[in-house]
């Protein structure tokens, strides 16, 4: 056993320590999906000669960088969801991004306090409906609470981060009392227990289980490209022009930040700038049908598919602040029960 284990250990060490020798490198910690990021990473390395070392995480990215402390290899963080991004900044693991190019490309409203993060793409959460069974082409989120949708509304779990941010935006706009009533009314309308993924609601519209549902727009884009039965889900639904009453469409963001103890700070800035450039914005935003922040990017796939975006003006910071209260309200009304 011990000889064997020594052999294994040796094999493992040689596996782990062998890495290609690039003169320049940058270390990326991200919660984004490898399939989405890899094309951007490859383009960056090709254009700049800087090698990207990546670790694709899920929950706990912030805790890991915090624990790794002064010796953390992390240079750049690419994150999704304004709550996670704000928390990273609040936890003190980021540093201000000092780049005139970044400031010029992304408007101040899309940058975090003290320039500690910058939005790369916007992700809209909208209402979709059955092409056959629903007449209207526009809707307010408030209208989803109308009893006319009783037994016809589908949504994933209320505690999922996408819905959590959506309800937090509602809360920021309308206050706790109205939000609680809203959640109760939505719950009264559901056709099935909230659960599954965002795409499942499209399938459930096709199957006739529900008529109307909430979905992140990029799933619509991905289904439109699908070569399997998901194409059928796509064909069964139509996106409705969705907005808060007297406001715009609910958006969440994906963003970049530079780690406080970044050992390759210069390269980190280069990577963030690159992510905001036209080429990367096309790859990164179009790859997932998200809305690019760089105004020079024309004909983004998301815009071609769904039209231009009118984001709601509720500040991202307010949405982040209301997440906890929104999450508690979801529990209180038993939304996911």
């Amino acid at each position: 056993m011990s000889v064997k284990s020594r052999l294994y250990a040796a094999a493992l060490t040689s596996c782990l320590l062998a890495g290609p020798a690039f003169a320049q490198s940058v270390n990326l910690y991200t919660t984004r999906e490898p399939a989405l990021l890899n094309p951007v990473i490859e383009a960056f390395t090709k254009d700049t000669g800087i090698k990207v070392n990546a670790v694709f995480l899920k929950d706990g990215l912030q805790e890991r960088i915090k624990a790794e402390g002064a010796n953390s290899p992390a240079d750049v963080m690419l994150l999704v969801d304004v709550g996670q991004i704000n928390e990273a900044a609040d936890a003190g693991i980021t540093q201000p991004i000092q780049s005139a190019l970044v400031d010029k490309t992304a408007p101040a409203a899309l940058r975090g306090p003290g320039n500690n993060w910058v939005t790369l793409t916007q992700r809209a959460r909208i209402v979709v409906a059955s092409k056959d069974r629903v007449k209207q082409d526009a809707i307010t989120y408030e209208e989803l609470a109308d009893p006319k949708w009783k037994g016809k509304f589908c949504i994933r779990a209320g505690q999922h981060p996408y819905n959590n941010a959506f309800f937090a935006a509602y809360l920021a706009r309308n206050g706790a009392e109205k939000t609680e009533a809203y959640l109760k009314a939505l719950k009264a309308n559901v056709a099935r227990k909230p659960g599954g993924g965002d795409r499942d609601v499209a399938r459930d519209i096709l199957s006739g289980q529900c008529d109307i549902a909430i979905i992140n727009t990029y799933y619509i884009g991905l289904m439109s490209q699908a070569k399997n039965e998901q194409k059928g889900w796509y064909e069964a639904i139509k996106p409705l022009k969705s907005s808060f009453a007297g406001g715009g469409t609910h958006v969440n963001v994906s963003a970049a930040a530079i780690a406080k103890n970044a050992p390759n700070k210069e390269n980190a800035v280069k990577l963030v700038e690159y992510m905001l450039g036209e080429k990367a914005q096309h790859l990164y935003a179009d790859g997932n049908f998200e809305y690019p922040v760089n105004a020079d990017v024309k004909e983004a796939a998301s815009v071609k598919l769904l039209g231009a975006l009118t984001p709601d003006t509720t500040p991202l910071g307010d949405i982040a602040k209301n997440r906890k209260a929104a999450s508690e309200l979801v529990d209180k009304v038993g939304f996911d029960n």
Partner: protein
Amino acid sequence: MSQAVISPANGRPSHLWRPSTRLALLAALAAALVALPVLSLGLTALSREALAVWPHLTANVLPAALGDTLLLLAGVAVFCGIVGVGTAWLVTQHEFPGRKNLEWLLVLPLAMPTYITAYVYVEILGFQGPLQSLFRALTGYRSLRDYWFPDPRNLTGAILILGLVLYPYVYLSVRALFGMQSAAIVESARTLGASRWTLFRRVALPMARPALAAGLTLALLETLNDIGASEYLGVRSLTLSVYTTWLNRSSLPGAAQIACVMLLVVVGLILVEMQSRGARRFSLPVKRLRPVGRSPLPRGAAWAASAACALPVLLGAILPLAFLFGEFLRRDLIAQADAAMLRSLANTLAISAAATAIVVAVGVGVAAAVRLGREPWLPAVARLASLGYALPGTVLALGLLVPLAAFDNLVADASRAVFGASPGLLLLGSGAALVIAYLVRFLSIALAGTQSGLARISPRIDDAARSLGAGRRELLRRLHWPLTRPAIAAAALLVFVDCMKELPMTLLLRPLNFETLATQVYGHASRGVFEDGALAALLIVLIGIYPAIMLARAGNGEKLAAGS
């Protein structure tokens, strides 16, 4: 009769024995390592502000979450108990068509990650799945508004799906015991006129209790800690509350408190089970360990037995595999079989093998310490060393993160001070952190496996060997090792499969540029296209098949009898 078998002896080696100090130290060290994340979690939980999560939890979350969790656990326990014990009894006691193959096939579902099985069943039973399509073609219905069809996205679905993946834990441990049952008891019972059913109920089942408890403990802890499948299927479990408290309400201390309370409940339940088993011992006299002759079944019953054993295999492994393979072909995923996939495969094999070797070595060491040592604290230490399995993977990884990173920083700073250069993060940067995490999490599998093997060797045999002048080392080498080898091999293979499909800790603790098959599957699933991960998922299962076959062989009573 039962007196002869269930020895009332106190099981402790007699006072003549010098306790093995080195092994006892190892046990203490292992327990300390496992205690590390638990302590770190406990420290995180010590926050006065975090207490604020409790009023909300008790008012709005716990009633529903406790109910769901208890129903889920009870359902999975009943499912795994019936399927695991039933199939184990059939394959060890009876002869029927296909028995030899079914014996190892029954282990296969274990190689499926639970969340994959969940996705697959939602697809298979879904509106466009084969079953509903056929149903519509036959009936002429067009929409789900016209008919009802079972939907797996609920508590019942979660119970069935988790049960299908987890029953092999029970099957394996119980089968090992049935396979070794003293032929004498079975034959005596038969001579005394016991029917097959009485034999099962009055003799086999009571004797299988420790094995059933061991298998069920693993299955239920795995259920309790599952997040992927139960979240996808819409179960509001306690573990989900840990996640929402941490992530949506930004309260890691609050989440740690919930996790600690869950841990206490788990420890309490395990203690209650041990207490109720009491001082009874379940060891067997070794000399009678010749295999029980399998009795042939009448024709109809034989085919029924074949069907009963084939069904869990079909639903738990073959159907999901066929689905994955279909997706693999339909999507031309062969293009994914590139250098990156090969690297993931190599990484998976290397780290799982390394971790398994270490986990098993430590597990055997701790078990030996408990068996031979006289220190009164050893059994408690062994319990402590098993705690890692009782925490959700991500929570455990979070608990490990702080001490591991602290160690890494210490080394890095010291080395910079002395040599002027730093090796970077030694553990977190190398994958060693991952091996440590697997050790903490899966030690209980190796430990419990070895202990259940040792428990079957009567302490009287130790006494006999000692009176013949055998030393401690000799006793271990010539008696315990050959007799427990099959149990240890079985545990090793379980650990290997578990390491291979482990996801949450691997995601959080792996170094840069390090992908495994499980993280590849997750990468696709997180984009909502889990079907694109079919190749990686297939590889996990295919690698799992080999251990499953070995497992079936290792657990064979014949081998053991021959070995002794």
